């Protein structure tokens, strides 16, 4: 009797749960809009941000990771010890971790992944992150020791990148189309050209995700994105392509507009190695000819923080140098005259596809025209931009956002497309990489920012905003974008 009662109660509970299930189901699934479709889903052999926007922190995990505010926190490595000379990192790995295919995760996978990334035939887009690694040794299944060639203050930061995630050797061949990681979500399906579907991974070692199902839907057309949000086809669009329509979402209580920062310093890059921009006076003249406010209003509909150097304004080490290159067309004209161009000159302005570049470029061309510089616009695709501007350095002016975090070191690289050569700057960078003391590093970062602003290497425009739209009931989306990611692990619907 008692038994029967128990059984019946259980059945009733199950039935009730079954009846309630649809109501719950509606609240544990989310559709996230993305502008670009990832070419494949392997973040260790492709640079496309879209790969990370799907996989980072959802499917794949690294030793360390970025949290929502850009801080480096433990991930697969629960903790680590750094030797006093800064050369040896001993990582203590999380235990009970399983890959989505059921195989256990261990120190061997870490060694495999790091060795693969730095191998001679590696196709890792950020191979430089691993350049300082001398060896990776397995101490025991839960401990791995990484030895560096020289001290590197950014090593833990480097290991947080999407390119440094840990993969299983078993699934490596099919990672591009069927990614297998250790994250809270597992890959389910990819309808090419339309969407990628993920589902909660029941064997996840950490705090389980609150969502059961995540769908990334690819909508590149801004008006289609607008309509999809309005119609509820998409629940969240973290990098919304139609900034011009944000006022409509702000006015609608169903939606929340989330405006934050990215790590993208948007520049009007000048070819420092080519006439007339090899003359610092000309570069300064360009800097003063630019009206940042007009560009942000006209091209970004008011979103974006002006910058005066190549550094993210939300970083504590940022120095506001915008006043040094304020909008002053008269000064600009005077500088041009001094430089020997009283009547200005004609140059080319190559614009890659993103709206910040295409729209910003038209405004900048008009601003430059006012001081006598005639900028002839050519719209180029990314592939052409990479070939002609980035690789071939065949350009005068171009607009591009440098979205990698903490990438001021690019000004010290030889043969970088800016053609900027400064031993003073290289010295700062060399000191920086040899310094681990936070206070000294901060001073060096500030010095680096001032150096490039004083040399007017480029016209620094604004920090690319992360402007997203989401259903007002969704909680837990990242406000800022310290790294390309749509981390869904803590996202949920409130009732």
């Amino acid at each position: 009797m008692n038994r029967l009662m128990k059984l019946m109660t259980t059945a009733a509970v199950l039935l009730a749960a079954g009846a309630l299930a649809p109501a719950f189901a509606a609240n544990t699934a989310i559709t996230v809009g993305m502008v670009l479709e990832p070419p494949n889903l392997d973040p260790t052999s492709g640079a496309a941000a879209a790969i990370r926007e799907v996989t980072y922190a959802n499917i794949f995990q690294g030793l360390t990771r970025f949290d929502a505010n850009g801080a480096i926190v433990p991930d697969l490595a629960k903790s680590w010890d750094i030797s006093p000379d800064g050369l040896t990192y001993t990582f203590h790995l999380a235990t009970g971790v399983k890959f989505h295919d059921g195989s256990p995760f261990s120190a061997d996978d870490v060694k495999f992944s790091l060795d693969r990334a730095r191998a001679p035939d590696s196709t890792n887009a950020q191979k430089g992150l691993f350049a300082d690694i001398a060896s990776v040794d397995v101490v025991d299944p839960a401990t791995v020791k990484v030895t560096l060639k020289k001290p590197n203050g950014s090593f833990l930061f480097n290991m947080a990148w999407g390119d440094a995630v840990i993969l299983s050797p078993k699934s490596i061949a099919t990672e591009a189309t069927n990614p297998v990681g250790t994250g809270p979500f597992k890959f389910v399906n990819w309808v090419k050209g339309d969407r990628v579907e993920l589902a909660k991974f029941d064997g996840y070692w950490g705090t389980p995700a609150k969502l059961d199902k995540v769908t990334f839907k690819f909508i590149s057309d801004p008006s289609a994105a607008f309509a999809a949000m309005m119609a509820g086809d998409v629940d969240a669009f973290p990098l919304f392509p139609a900034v011009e329509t944000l006022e409509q979402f702000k006015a609608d209580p169903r939606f929340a507009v989330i405006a934050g920062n990215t790590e993208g310093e948007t520049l009007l890059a000048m070819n420092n190695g080519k006439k007339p921009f090899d003359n610092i006076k000309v570069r300064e003249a360009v800097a003063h000819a630019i009206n940042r406010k007009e560009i942000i209003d006209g091209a970004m509909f008011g979103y974006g923080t002006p910058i005066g150097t190549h550094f993210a304004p939300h970083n504590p080490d940022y120095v506001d140098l915008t006043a040094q290159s304020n909008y002053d067309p008269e000064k600009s004209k005077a500088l041009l005259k001094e430089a020997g161009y009283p009547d200005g000159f004609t140059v080319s302005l190559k614009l890659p596809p993103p709206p910040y570049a295409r729209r910003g470029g038209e405004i900048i061309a008009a601003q430059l025209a006012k001081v006598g510089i005639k900028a002839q616009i050519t719209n180029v695709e990314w592939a052409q931009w990479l070939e002609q501007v980035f690789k071939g350095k065949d350009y005068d002016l171009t607009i591009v956002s440098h979205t990698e975090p903490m990438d001021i070191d690019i000004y010290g690289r030889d043969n970088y497309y800016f053609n900027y050569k400064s031993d003073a700057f290289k010295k700062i960078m060399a000191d920086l990489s040899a310094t681990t003391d936070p206070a000294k590093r901060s001073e060096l970062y500030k010095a680096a920012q001032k150096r490039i602003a004083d040399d007017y290497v480029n016209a620094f425009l604004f920090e690319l905003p992360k402007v997203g739209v989401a259903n007002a009931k969704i909680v837990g989306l990242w406000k800022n974008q310290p790294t390309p990611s749509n981390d869904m692990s803590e996202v949920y619907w409130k009732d």
Partner: protein
Amino acid sequence: MSVGFLPERKRGLWAAAFQSKSFALGFAVTAIFILAALLSFVWTPYDATALSVAEKLKGPSTVHWFGTDHFGRDIFSMIMVGARTSIAVAFVAVGIGMAAGVPLGLWAAAKQGSLVDEVIMRANDLVFAFPALLIAILITAVFGPSAINAIIAIGIFNIPVFARLARGAALTLWTREYIFAARVAGKGALRISAEHILPNILNLLIVQGTIQFSLGILADAALSYVGLGAQPPTPSWGRMLSDAQTMISLAPHMALFPGAAIVLTVLGLNLMGDGLRDIFDPKLQRSRT
């Protein structure tokens, strides 16, 4: 549309043309746009490239007749200047098609059945078989986007059209007695083609030219819509439409006016073409296609 036309009256061609209502209407519409394009060289209500971000996305008003775009540029002025680009691109592209296609077609007709004929006609088929827009995109991917490359891309696809038309028309003429007479008199194929055949197929070519002109306007619009035509700040109708697309819920006027300009120009040219066909070949009146 062309009912009142009576060719027997032997008025001048010009007067006869205006008897055709479709020609008259088409001519009027086309003339408006050509005049607007010419006028834009000396006058537009505003500077078509002058930005004024504060004035952006204003609807049509007495100040800005067609409103302003997302940079606060005057759309009416942009359409005037854009007419210049579109008409020039389409016109030159048709010119290329005729200049290369007609001689090829005449050559093929003169050597009917020979290897030359076969090669020319198969090459034509081949060009026809390529998806035109894709090839145009490829051409601009190779040479970079510009009005010139848009002209070349459109022009290439005009060549087989004229080659085929010229060959077909010339073939029927080659069977005529007066051509036979000319051959007997010792004239070479080249001379016959130039002196006897070309003048007789000119009408056809003009009609087809008008049609291709209108198709060229459409093709230019499509190419600049995908960003492969004239580069900014030069206004072009297609790019105005692609700019308008993201703002369509916010500022529909940005899409309506350039679109209407394209439709009217193409319509005008097509009506002109129809009218011309009626005038040149009254028999065809019943089957205007």
